[in-house]
């Protein structure tokens, strides 16, 4: 039945070897009162049946191929070359586990070493780990890593208000038992300069995002100033980035970041309703022994040939247990592999081209929308692929109109997280958005001003 191969004859023979007459005997240690509960689950289905059912369920979702998507906010609809899925669908990669036995895991290990190398190259940092769960937990791990570097301990952490709201939430969740003071994001308009001013000798780490959550790019000069201010107090600077933006823009390693994190989904991983994604985690070399997560290192075998192993595992839970740098065990290996394949096949030229396409299309869309009466682009600094639009009507209403009338998924509604911006949406434009889609968006938005909209209350 299903994936258990035994026939009744097999079972009988095996039971005879064990010396039992009934499999139930093996469970004598389970208190009789609780043994063999009847589970209330739907009746089993064959492969043919479940496929039909799930195909129908999947059809109930509106997927990228059916609409034009201008939604980003931490998860991005970027192009994924066909090569990526070919590699991550290789049985040898996806049905192996953590490479505890390096001699029969050189495929995974070398691929991870190469991933670490390309992440280091992209971020301008010395080294990288083999992944965290996602962009959010990577930030949390960065904070914890920063805490570990301080003797005596420092208990203050500064988060920029334009660090992704969910990332800030995760930092707070992770560290809720640590007695920290997490500050900096009380006022939504605290800029990096003001943030730096909050930094002191109590501060363990300052975390910012660039391009920030609202899409704004912070210049290398601004970032260098921030780093200098942070370092002056002996604190660390952690920067969360969009890896695609690094195809064009100065990497954090060049402006003084100590730790760089990123959501790596954009690098060859499908949207997949939010996961599995990829926590990118890079750092300065002197932080290596405080780093969390798996690290693959180069070494040699008995014959002196080059090979790769998991290394510095004395940092990790399976050796250090309660004193480990993190509890992480299973990571996002296959997503890191996807990112590696993506970076390898896009390469220097391709990644830059993707970043350029995002830049040009986003700016073109912004220019067009800026020309619409009733709309305003809130972008004091240069932006990369996302920008804020202040709208003439509530964003939820507009988005419903876009979807119903134009098959467009509109931008992220900022009214919850950044109410001071008013009726504002965060639009995202990538290389996947054609000029025609942008045209449609502009047309649709223009119709909104002419108030074709039924107020949201009536719709529900």
């Amino acid at each position, binding site marked *: 039945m299903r994936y258990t191969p035994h026939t009744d004859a097999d079972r009988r023979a095996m039971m005879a070897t064990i010396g039992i007459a009934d499999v139930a005997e093996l469970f*004598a240690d389970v208190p009789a009162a609780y043994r063999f509960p*009847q589970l209330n689950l739907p009746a089993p289905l064959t492969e043919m049946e479940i496929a039909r059912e799930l195909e129908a369920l999947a059809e109930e979702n509106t997927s990228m191929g059916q609409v034009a998507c201008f939604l980003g906010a931490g998860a991005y609809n970027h192009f994924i070359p066909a090569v990526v899925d070919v590699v991550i669908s290789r049985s040898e990669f996806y049905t192996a586990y953590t490479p505890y036995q390096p001699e029969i895991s050189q495929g995974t290990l070398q691929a991870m070493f190469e991933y670490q190398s390309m992440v280091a190259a992209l971020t301008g940092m010395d080294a990288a780990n083999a992944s965290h769960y996602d962009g959010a937990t990577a930030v949390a791990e960065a904070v914890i890593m920063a805490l570990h570097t301080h003797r005596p301990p420092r208990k203050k952490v500064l988060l920029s208000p334009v660090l992704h709201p969910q990332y800030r939430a995760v930092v707070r969740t992770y560290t809720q038992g640590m007695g920290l003071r997490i500050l900096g994001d009380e006022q939504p308009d605290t800029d990096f300069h003001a943030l730096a001013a909050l930094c002191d000798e109590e501060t363990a780490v300052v975390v910012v995002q660039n391009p920030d959550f609202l899409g704004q790019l912070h210049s290398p000069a601004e970032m260098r100033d921030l780093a200098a201010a942070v370092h002056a107090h002996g604190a660390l600077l952690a920067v969360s980035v969009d890896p695609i933006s690094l195809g064009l823009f100065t990497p954090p390693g060049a402006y003084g970041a100590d730790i760089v994190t990123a959501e790596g989904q954009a690098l060859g991983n499908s949207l997949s309703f939010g996961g599995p994604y990829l926590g990118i985690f890079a750092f300065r070399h002197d932080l290596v022994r405080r780093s969390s997560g798996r690290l693959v290192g180069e*070494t040699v075998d008995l014959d002196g040939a080059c090979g790769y192993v998991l290394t510095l595992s004395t940092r990790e839970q399976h050796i250090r247990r309660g004193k480990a740098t993190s509890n992480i065990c*299973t990571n996002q290996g296959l997503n890191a592999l996807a990112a590696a394949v993506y970076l390898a096949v896009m390469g220097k030229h391709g990644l830059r081209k993707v970043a350029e396409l995002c830049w040009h299309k986003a700016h073109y869309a912004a220019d067009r929308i800026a020309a619409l009466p009733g709309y305003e682009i809130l972008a004091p600094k240069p932006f990369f692929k996302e920008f804020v639009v202040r709208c003439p009507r509530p964003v939820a209403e507009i988005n419903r109109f876009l979807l119903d009338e134009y098959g467009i998924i509109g931008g992220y509604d900022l009214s919850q997280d950044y109410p001071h911006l008013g009726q504002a949406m965060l639009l995202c434009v990538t290389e996947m958005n054609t000029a025609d889609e942008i045209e449609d968006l502009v047309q649709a938005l223009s119709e909104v001003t002419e108030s074709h909209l039924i107020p949201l209350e009536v719709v529900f």
Partner: protein
Amino acid sequence: MEPFLYDLSRPGRRGVDMPDPDVPLTPLPAEYLRDDLPLPEINETEVVRHYIRLSQKNYAVDKGFYPLGSCTMKYNPKINERMARLPGFAQIHPLQDPTTVQGAMQLMYELQQMLAEIAGLAAVSLQPAAGAHGELSGVLIMRAAQVARGQGHRHKILVPDSAHGTNPASTTMSGLTVVEIPSGADGNVDIDALKAQLDDRVVGLMITNPSTLGLFEQHIVEVCRLVHEAGGFVYGDGANLNAIMGIARPGELGIDVLHFNLHKTFSTPHGGGGPGSGPVGVTAELADFLPGPIVAQNESGEYVWKMPVRSIGRVKAFHGNFGMHVRAYTYIRMHGAEGLRRVSEDAVLNANYLQALLKQRGDYPIPYGHRFCMHEFVAQGRIAGAEGVHTLDIAKRLIDYGFHPPTIYFPLIVPEALMIEPTETETQETLDAFADALTAIAQEARTDPERLHTAPHTAPVRRLDEVRAARQPILARVPGRQPA
């Protein structure tokens, strides 16, 4: 030797082409631009070949037996992969309007329900990305619940010495204090030692049942009762759930919080290290503390996001490793109640069969071999008459016989441990062949120990120097830079 990726690069080579912009251009801001982008330049053909060749250097479940204890390396059904790649699942954005993703939310909702049913718990959050992530969530839940009870002074988490390293590590991350509890000679928790720690500073106990020794905790009900009486909660490490689906429900035994490893019990692939998925389930009392949002149903039957009212917060951006949810859902729906019980029965049958074979042959001590094991058991790499041979040698030699070695040197409380978990998807023939290999290796250990010390002999590389790797770590090579 497969070349290092960058060594396949040549200036100007291209992989995948991208189109030119179809919109008017906007000048780039010069002062923001990077000087160089030291990524490789390789044509698509060579990229593909590189990874295809690399892949062949891996062992994997799809190649053969992979009895890595505690990891449940069962077969990963191929239909799971197909389902997870349906555009309606793989190409939806996590922030889409819920009305446009009702199918996905229904799947998550039903998975929450089914996992709760399997574990005998009241509510589940699918957000954690792996087992350790579920642990962290669970410990934070216990902590938050103690605070809510006005017991914020409590700070001790009791952890048996046989526990997986993530248990104490998760405890520390949540700001609490680990107190280790020894195991008794029979492999159960030492009840007296437990009692000695059960004071009003206890937040809870983390227990793995079946334990990492592969044994069902015989006093589980009493253990839970004692902890509860002391005002603590019991956290169940669900990594070993594969042994007890339809056999026992942790919630009924007294477990308050439990994480599931979808990548173990529920057949989602291990991905060469991940991604996994570590949903956390709790009793009704703790449901409000779950990380979230989770999926709920409103009056009109629509699926909606709901943040539990006293949630510990979100532990991850978005909603968890949804791709893994699809796979686990597929698996559970294909099995149903009988099927899952059959899975656990056969997992335990296979482990006991292999244990019985090894006991009969007598080459490897099995410290708890007098008991029936659950889905795994722990033998020792101590071969009489081959004292110079260690578990590591045996493991490496197994590679030459075509098998993945078991988990070694864990649990820590068993010296020279070989932790063997066959899983239910293996045939009797495979188990026989594995036992034969172990017997042959024991023979070699006595007659030709050098063969074992220098094993493996047939792998893509010879034994690797891990000490050297750690002494002067090289974690990245970027052209034009010093290796770092």
